């Protein structure tokens, strides 16, 4: 059976596990119909021209795996940012792990979507926000149809959350391939502040496909910082659909670190519904082998006097392939917009490919929009300079790549996250040097 048919026919079983009389379920059913109509994206769609899911969709996925393996903290501790105190919302094969998690209802809500869907006290928030910014495209619709579990984060007005929140999805199934549909909702009320670290990690060599949707609502003067760490097993693929709705004077940053996985597709969408908003989208991609990373970003400038800053750096070795498609729309009303986009790529191997496409649609006449896109190799003179000082070629190259990526790293606000990323980069580049000594 084709994956699409299998998904559609599994919906009946899914309906046994959820409240089918809720408003949310109406949204799900509508989304399923939408997915049924649209199907999986193909290369015929402009947005998927350079990313083919064909090889990934051939797998015989289990849609609702039981928790396959019990996971001990010692086995997975290395995937946590564990040197600081954090809240944790942890899922194993799509199921909540109370053992590994550390949730809270003390002034803020850091808990589960399944609880938020079920309990009456969360209904006002669910009603107001759930599925309100998510776009109804193929894969988002698929996720919405099966939206049941994920992280639910609600930060009330004027609250600065002291500890970062980690959302981690582990996959463990050793005898079946699994497909999961995590659904996160993050609502940050007026003048509140929160930091989130998100990771998807396969602990098995079986195929895993994660189709994630995260909706983030930043109300007036809210600040939200999100760090996505993508350093997964070579058989794990990820489609990350993140939608950000911002109100006046809010600042939202999303840093995406893509260091591994089979196919990784990031759909990152920002909608500026207010004035004096700042949206920050940054990423570092370092891949090799036959890995593929695709960043599709959208910043929609709807109202005047807002800013957006995009900075994506990519380093591609061997036969890896990548896409950067950065779309900026400036509506007619969005005068005095300041939109900045930078995308720099280094091809370490002549077999690696990057398809880079800045896409600006500007309807206002008093705006500052800059974009720069470069594709190049490492600078031989700089490398010789390093070697001359006794730094071997491999380490010299690594240092140059680190320096290249540094404009993204320097805006990471949590030192432990920055240090973790730095270590991952060193490991990724096969060197043992502490870049941030």
């Amino acid at each position, binding site marked *: 059976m084709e994956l699409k048919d299998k998904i559609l026919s599994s919906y009946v079983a899914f309906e046994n596990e959820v409240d089918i009389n809720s408003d949310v379920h109406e949204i799900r059913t509508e989304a399923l119909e939408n997915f049924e109509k649209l199907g999986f994206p193909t290369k015929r769609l402009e947005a998927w021209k350079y990313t083919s899911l064909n090889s990934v969709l051939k797998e015989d996925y289990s849609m609702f795996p039981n928790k396959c393996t019990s996971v001990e903290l010692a086995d997975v501790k290395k995937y946590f940012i564990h040197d600081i105190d954090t809240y944790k919302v942890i899922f194993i094969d799509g199921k909540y792990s109370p053992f590994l998690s550390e949730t809270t209802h003390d002034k803020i809500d850091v808990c589960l979507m399944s609880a938020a869907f079920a309990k009456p006290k969360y209904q006002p928030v669910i009603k107001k926000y759930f599925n309100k910014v998510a776009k109804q495209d193929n894969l988002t619709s698929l996720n919405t149809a099966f939206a049941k579990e994920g992280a639910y984060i609600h930060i009330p007005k004027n609250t600065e959350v002291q500890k970062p929140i980690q959302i981690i999805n582990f996959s463990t199934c050793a005898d079946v391939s699994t497909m999961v549909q995590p659904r996160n909702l993050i609502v940050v009320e007026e003048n509140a502040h929160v930091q989130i670290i998100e990771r998807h990690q396969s602990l098995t060599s079986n195929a895993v496909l994660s189709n994630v949707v995260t909706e983030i609502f930043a109300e007036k003067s809210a600040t939200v910082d999100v760090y996505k760490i993508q350093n997964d097993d070579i058989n794990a693929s990820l489609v990350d659909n993140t939608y950000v709705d911002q109100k006046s004077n809010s600042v939202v940053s999303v840093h995406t670190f893509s260091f591994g996985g089979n196919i990784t597709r990031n759909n990152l969408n920002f909608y500026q519904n207010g004035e004096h908003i700042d949206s920050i989208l940054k990423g570092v991609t370092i891949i090799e082998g036959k890995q593929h990373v695709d960043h599709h970003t959208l910043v929609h400038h709807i109202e005047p006097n807002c800013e957006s800053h995009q900075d994506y750096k990519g380093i591609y070795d061997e036969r890896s392939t990548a896409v950067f498609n950065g779309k900026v729309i400036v509506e007619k009303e969005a005068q005095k917009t300041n939109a900045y986009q930078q995308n720099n790529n280094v091809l370490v191997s002549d077999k690696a490919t990057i398809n880079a496409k800045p896409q600006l649609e500007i309807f206002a006449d008093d705006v500052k929009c800059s974009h720069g896109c470069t594709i190049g190799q490492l600078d031989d003179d700089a490398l010789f300079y390093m070697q001359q000082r006794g730094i*071997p070629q491999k380490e010299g190259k690594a240092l140059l790549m680190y320096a290249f990526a540094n404009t993204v790293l320097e805006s990471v606000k949590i030192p432990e996250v920055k240090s973790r990323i730095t270590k991952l980069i060193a490991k990724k580049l096969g060197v043992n*040097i502490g870049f941030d000594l």
Partner: protein
Amino acid sequence: MLKINNLHANIEDKSILKGLNLEVKAGEVHAIMGPNGAGKSTMASVIAGKEEYEVTGGTIELNGEDISELAPEERAHNGVFLSFQYPVEIPGVSVTNFIKTAINETRKAKGLEDMPAKDMLKMIREKSELLEIDRKFLSRSLNEGFSGGEKKRNEIFQMAMLEPKLAILDETDSGLDIDALRIVANGVNKLKSKDNAVIVITHYQRLLDYIVPDFVHVLHDGKIVKTGDASLALELEAKGYDWIKQELV
């Protein structure tokens, strides 16, 4: 220390060095002068092992060992240091971080442990004082936005940290005002010992007022065509290079 025999080198099939001979002993300072395009910077790059140059003949011996087949970092580990005419800017890597990496990679190549952080800091403090370098400067990104003088001073700082056997200063005086020139030259003089050697490549005599050479060589068309003592530099300053070219005819 350094013995260059009949060295020939090309870049992209263009012959630049055409039978260069030079011997430098420990404790000596040699100046290399010569008109533009004579091959001075090529000589420096070839000794340091820059890969775009192809050595087509001859040998480069350092303390009796032929280094002409070694990678640039291996030559550095053997004690060769080149102060670049145009030091490369590397944003995102601080001066301190860079020099720590350079020292520890050199130690690693010699089978030594990393230098303890305390010793490293002490050494950095001493050497930066020697070269009158502000500590704040050391946390800046390597050469990024540095003035010409700062870049050159930073080169000599790295030289002081790495303590090479053979230091080649490629037009270290260019872009320096007289105060910076004095500081850089004093630094070089303080680092000089009976166990190391310095090759100074320069267009002008003025650096040699501060770093007094034991020998002055004139490089012309890829070969050393005249050798003398410090007074030769003064003569060149007064008379230019044409008389040497005429002598050759």
